[in-house]
């Protein structure tokens, strides 16, 4: 390979878990390129050859701020991960935008991180990730700060006929109702999280979505990922469906996504720390 091209790395698997060349044949990556394995010491990294002009550090930094580019890259990255894990192989997704100059660099990484990668593959083997988000839908719990809504469930505006004391009283009552609703929703989210945690090997809590990222529904009260054994998947999704059915009674709505490759757990040590993004020590 000449220096006009770089290798974009998608994922690490075990050699024996790697799909054959035929399975990769139709697969394309972030630059529409074909995807191939680089094998070393019993591990495989899936890479694609990409133009340096689009994927060197400066180009990447600029591209990653372009939502359209990022969406295309993220979906291509996911496509490769999904294709490789479809056969049941354990796949460690690499973080977006991990780039090497050549195969020597990829092999060096496999050698340097051999023990940690092997341990992560052992730990995650046979597991998938499910995502669960819980949103408040009850009118009382619509936190004004989160929705930015000026209409709706807020306290009534003071009218000429209302005394100052009545106004303050009605505001206090509305605030109390808000707090009561929010407390009930948090309680419901905790209950859902506890029930699902009991069926999971590990969990990870993401910060709740704020503002418009919470979506058209209300305040995001839980945004979590659960690592679940493949054979327990049915039990987990049935439990989630059951909880989703009961959720409206508590003023919340449950949304399930997955199964995902174990993105949220691949980079974590075995402690199950719910905090974000640390690398394997």
């Amino acid at each position, binding site marked *: 390979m000449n220096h006009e091209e770089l290798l974009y790395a998608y994922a690490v698997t075990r050699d024996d878990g790697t799909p054959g060349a035929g399975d990769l044949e139709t697969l394309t990556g972030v630059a529409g390129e074909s995807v191939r394995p680089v094998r070393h010491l019993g591990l495989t990294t899936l890479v694609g050859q990409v133009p340096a002009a689009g994927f060197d550090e400066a180009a990447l930094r600029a591209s990653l701020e372009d939502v359209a580019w990022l969406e295309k890259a993220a979906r291509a990255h996911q496509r490769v991960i999904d294709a490789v894990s479809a056969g049941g192989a354990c796949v460690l997704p690499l973080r977006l935008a991990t780039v090497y100059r050549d195969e020597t660099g990829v092999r060096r990484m496999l050698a340097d991180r051999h023990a940690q990668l092997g341990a992560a593959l052992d730990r995650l083997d046979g597991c998938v990730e499910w995502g669960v988000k819980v949103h408040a839908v009850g009118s009382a719990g619509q936190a004004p700060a989160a929705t930015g809504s000026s209409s709706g469930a807020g306290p009534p505006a003071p009218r000429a006929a209302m005394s100052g004391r009545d106004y303050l009283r009605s505001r206090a009552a509305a605030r109390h109702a808000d707090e009561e609703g929010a407390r009930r929703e948090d309680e419901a989210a905790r209950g859902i999280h506890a029930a699902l945690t009991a069926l999971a090997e590990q969990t990870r809590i993401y910060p709740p979505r704020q503002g418009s990222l919470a*979506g058209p529904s209300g305040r995001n009260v839980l945004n979590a990922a659960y690592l679940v054994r493949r054979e327990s998947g049915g039990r987990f999704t049935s439990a989630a469906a059951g909880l989703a059915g009961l959720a409206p009674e508590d003023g919340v709505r449950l949304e399930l996504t997955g199964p*995902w490759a174990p993105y949220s757990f691949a980079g974590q040590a075995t402690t199950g720390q719910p905090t974000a993004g640390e690398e394997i020590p």
Partner: protein
Amino acid sequence: MTGDGLLVQRRLSLVDLLDRLLAGGVVVAGDLTLRIADVDLIRINLHALISSIDDQVPSPWESWEPRESWVSREEAGA
């Protein structure tokens, strides 16, 4: 309206994916890996960009502490 709804759904599923690709995944040293700080910056820019489809552009990644009662189980358990 339906079109807007689909766009929002699509954006939100992108946020789900990016949460995983930028905050998850194995971090290994590439020859040209962006530093974690850069990735975090990207995440902030990106969330601002995505949320700018609405009028309100809140800061989506304000410092946030997991509720103790939620995390104690994992910390104690695993």
